[in-house]
């Protein structure tokens, strides 16, 4: 009886089978299509930004300060996210932490909580007149401000807290699939558990930590909602400010352009330093590492997990529940705003489906086809993620209203915006899965007279089906939460849930905002829940 054969490939990867002319043409068409989707907004931005006079309008020093602030905030938030993700991931996968499966599921929920909602709840808790301050003031009898979440530090705290799942998920997957024999060998050679972690496990985890870290970093760099609520002065808030105070948008365009350049620089730098494959290739072992006994470290570990999950899941949801009011109010708001729910679900679902299919095609081309077309393909797609939502909305309005007015103003342009922004999530996930598949499977199929297209459909897609679903869920969640671009692009009367949350917050209708936030979180967590249950029952 053999071990469960992985689809993984052992040893050095052979060169992928040469694709015929037809597939190369398809690859080039794909690249063209994706470029047409992603590049025009960028080009418009460049055009609007590089105009005489606008450079002078924004002092060079101010630009540098802004850049420094934005980058450092994103970097610190990422480090904070790593600090949260790593210990939790290790505890959940490698030890006998009680309720670790539940913890693993819970740790993903912060992804469903938009960062601006997170910021809201912490302002209510840790703001100058928030719960903690009021409580401490009554306790000590003074009127001092003990904690203040507003500002740079608050921004780092919130952004890291709600992006750590990106790193957590990838590290968990990597820990699941590393070969225990390597760590056991290290133990035999004299290293204690901590030494093994430091010298063996951590280096092996580096690709996933970096991949997740990159996602978190880019999120923090382009986030607007939470930072504007926390009164932090960075690129995105400045762009929004310029858009809403200045008469023309060239200043906003310039700032946007610089921000996009910075993000592109980060992407290019990441690629150069850590290579194209920024994910972990499955090593394909059948053996799973036995969980480590925590012993007397059990309670500290539980406490740590409890704190992390408490801060990122229980506390925010608790605050929202307390602000939400009665069940009756809940029902009323639900009834009143049901149309907006439909809007959110519909657009997010469409975007996720498009992204899944397109991501599969692009990932396959990028991984299997040779030539420069495929290399530029994934790079082009990643650019889409780098464009902040506000900027994207701005550029899409101008482009499509001028050249394709019948398209602009439809829901289609909204779905397009989601697609541009989130296609990269789909593509990277599928690329990772495809790269781990033994190329012999494809060759065997082709020797059985199956064309490359049919190989994709009949062999590769079924094997990566779990990844396809995961990727669908990921894009769905991202699209459901999206605020910045939706604010600008939505046709009149077509609001989505995040837009409603924003409007009610700005108009100080906190109870309604809380109710809608809770419903938004529930609707985004739902696909994830379904996915994990299906996977648990091996139906996927």
């Amino acid at each position, binding site marked *: 009886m053999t071990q469960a054969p992985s689809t993984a490939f052992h040893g050095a990867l052979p060169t992928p089978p040469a694709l015929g002319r037809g597939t190369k043409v398809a690859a080039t068409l794909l690249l063209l299509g994706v470029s047409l989707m992603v590049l025009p907004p960028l080009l418009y931005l460049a055009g609007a930004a590089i105009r005489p006079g606008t450079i002078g309008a924004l002092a060079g020093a101010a630009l540098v300060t802004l850049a420094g602030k934005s980058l450092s905030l994103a970097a610190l938030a990422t480090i904070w996210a790593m600090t949260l993700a790593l210990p939790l991931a290790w505890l959940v996968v490698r030890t006998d932490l009680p309720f670790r499966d539940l913890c693993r599921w819970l740790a993903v929920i912060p992804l469903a909580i938009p960062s601006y909602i997170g910021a809201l709840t912490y302002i209510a808790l840790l703001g100058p007149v928030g719960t903690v301050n009021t409580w401490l003031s009554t306790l000590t009898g003074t009127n001092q401000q003990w904690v203040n979440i507003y500002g740079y530090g608050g921004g780092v705290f919130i952004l890291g807290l709600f992006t750590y799942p990106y790193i957590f998920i990838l590290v968990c997957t990597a820990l699941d699939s590393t070969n225990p024999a390597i760590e056991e060998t290290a133990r035999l050679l004299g290293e204690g558990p901590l030494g093994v972690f430091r010298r063996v496990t951590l280096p092996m985890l580096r690709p996933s930590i970096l991949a997740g870290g990159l996602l978190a970093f880019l999120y923090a760099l382009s986030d607007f909602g939470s930072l504007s609520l926390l009164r932090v002065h960075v690129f995105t808030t400045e762009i929004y400010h310029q858009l809403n105070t200045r008469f023309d948008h060239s200043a906003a365009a310039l700032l946007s352009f610089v921000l996009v350049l910075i993000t592109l620089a980060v992407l290019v730098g990441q690629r150069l330093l850590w290579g194209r494959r920024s994910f972990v290739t499955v090593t394909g072992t059948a053996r799973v590492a036995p969980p480590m006994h925590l012993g007397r470290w059990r309670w500290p570990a539980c406490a740590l997990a409890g704190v992390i999950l408490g801060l990122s899941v229980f506390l925010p949801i608790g605050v929202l529940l307390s602000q939400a009011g009665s069940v009756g109010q809940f029902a009323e708001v639900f009834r009143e705003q049901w149309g907006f729910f439909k809007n959110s679900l519909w657009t997010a679902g469409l975007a996720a489906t498009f992204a899944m299919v397109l991501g599969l095609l692009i990932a396959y081309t990028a991984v299997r086809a040779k030539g420069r077309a495929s290399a530029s393909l994934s790079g082009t797609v990643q650019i889409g993620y780098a464009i902040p939502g506000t900027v994207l909305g701005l550029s899409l309005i101008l482009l499509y209203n001028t050249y394709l007015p019948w398209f602009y103003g439809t829901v289609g342009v909204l779905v397009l915006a989601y697609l541009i922004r989130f296609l990269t999530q789909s593509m990277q996930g599928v690329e990772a899965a495809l790269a781990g598949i033994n190329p012999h499977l494809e*060759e065997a199929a082709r020797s059985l007279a199956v064309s490359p297209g049919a190989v994709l459909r009949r062999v590769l897609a079924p094997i990566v089906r779990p990844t396809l679903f995961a990727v669908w869920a990921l894009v769905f969640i991202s699209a459901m939460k999206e605020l910045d671009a939706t604010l600008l692009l939505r046709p009149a009367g077509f609001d989505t849930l995040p837009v409603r949350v924003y409007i009610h917050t700005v108009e100080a209708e906190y109870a309604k905002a809380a109710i809608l936030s809770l419903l938004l979180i529930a609707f985004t967590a739902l696909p994830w829940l379904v996915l994990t249950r299906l996977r648990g029952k091996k139906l996927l």
Partner: protein
Amino acid sequence: MTLIELARVSVTYPNAATPALHDLTLTVEEGAFLAILGPSGCGKTTVLRAIAGFERPQSGRILIDGRLVCEGSHWVPPEERGVGMVFQDYALFPHLTVAQNVAFGLRRSGRKGREEADRTVAETLGLVGLNGMEARYPHELSGGQQQRVAIARALAPKPIVLLLDEPFSNLDPDMRGQMREEVQEILLRAGTTAILVTHDHDEAFAMADRVAVLNHGRLEQFDNPESIYHTPSTPFVANFVGQADFLLGRVDDGKIQTEVGIFENVDGHPPGKAVEIMIRPDDVHIMPASPGAAQIVGRQFRGSENIYTMLLPSGQHLHSSEPSTTVYPIGTSVELKIVATHIVIFPKQ
């Protein structure tokens, strides 16, 4: 009739300094079994992949069943070549059952098509002895069973030729012999032309009608197994297919003078030429004698035989294979008697 023809095929991988295949010319007759033999990195897998269409040669011509599949810019993709392939790691589709795996390459349109395909699947599974396993998944099978499924899958669409890439190297050694026999039988029954790639000369000899020995991308010898073993064309081939010693000799007086005897100058080398005579252990018989021509300095027990290493006065070593029923201790002085059915002489390099 010639089924597969490679004419002066060269393949160089990108960023490689030397070609993987250099000017290779080979033919395979219909119904024949060719083994491509050589050490790792010699290019044997490359030949297979070139025939299958997974590598594109820089120069040369490949014909399959009289049809030109590769020459210059003309190139037929793998799915149109009608070639079946069995991979070293079997490459079974993990998400399909055995039956679905085997049926994968069959046309299945319409009810009639499906019935026909089902029949072929049953037939092919019967051929490899796996009837009753249709609903199993690959991970539920043993290594040998997986291999049989891989063969059935490749055979089901009745390919022109079956390519096997080191198919037995993943099996336990004791399974190998059995599987070789079984596969041979299957192929005979199916009547399929086959090309096997291996680094194991026992395997090549056991299964093939013709053997091509490759070394660093070049064809060293293309012959039937007996000729390869008994009359290797180069020292490399000689060494690769079995244990061989090279006895120094000199052409003198129309014969070749060596330390242990005189041999016929069968190749007509000029007088005074220094040559090497290939001696296999099974050609050398030893008898303890005192004083002897050589001394035993080593012994390896091989189950049915002992291989003795002997030191000649000149310092050369010779090996002799004797049945293991008798054991000569190390240090024994022996007489040598060389009985060679073929005399293979190489000029001294």
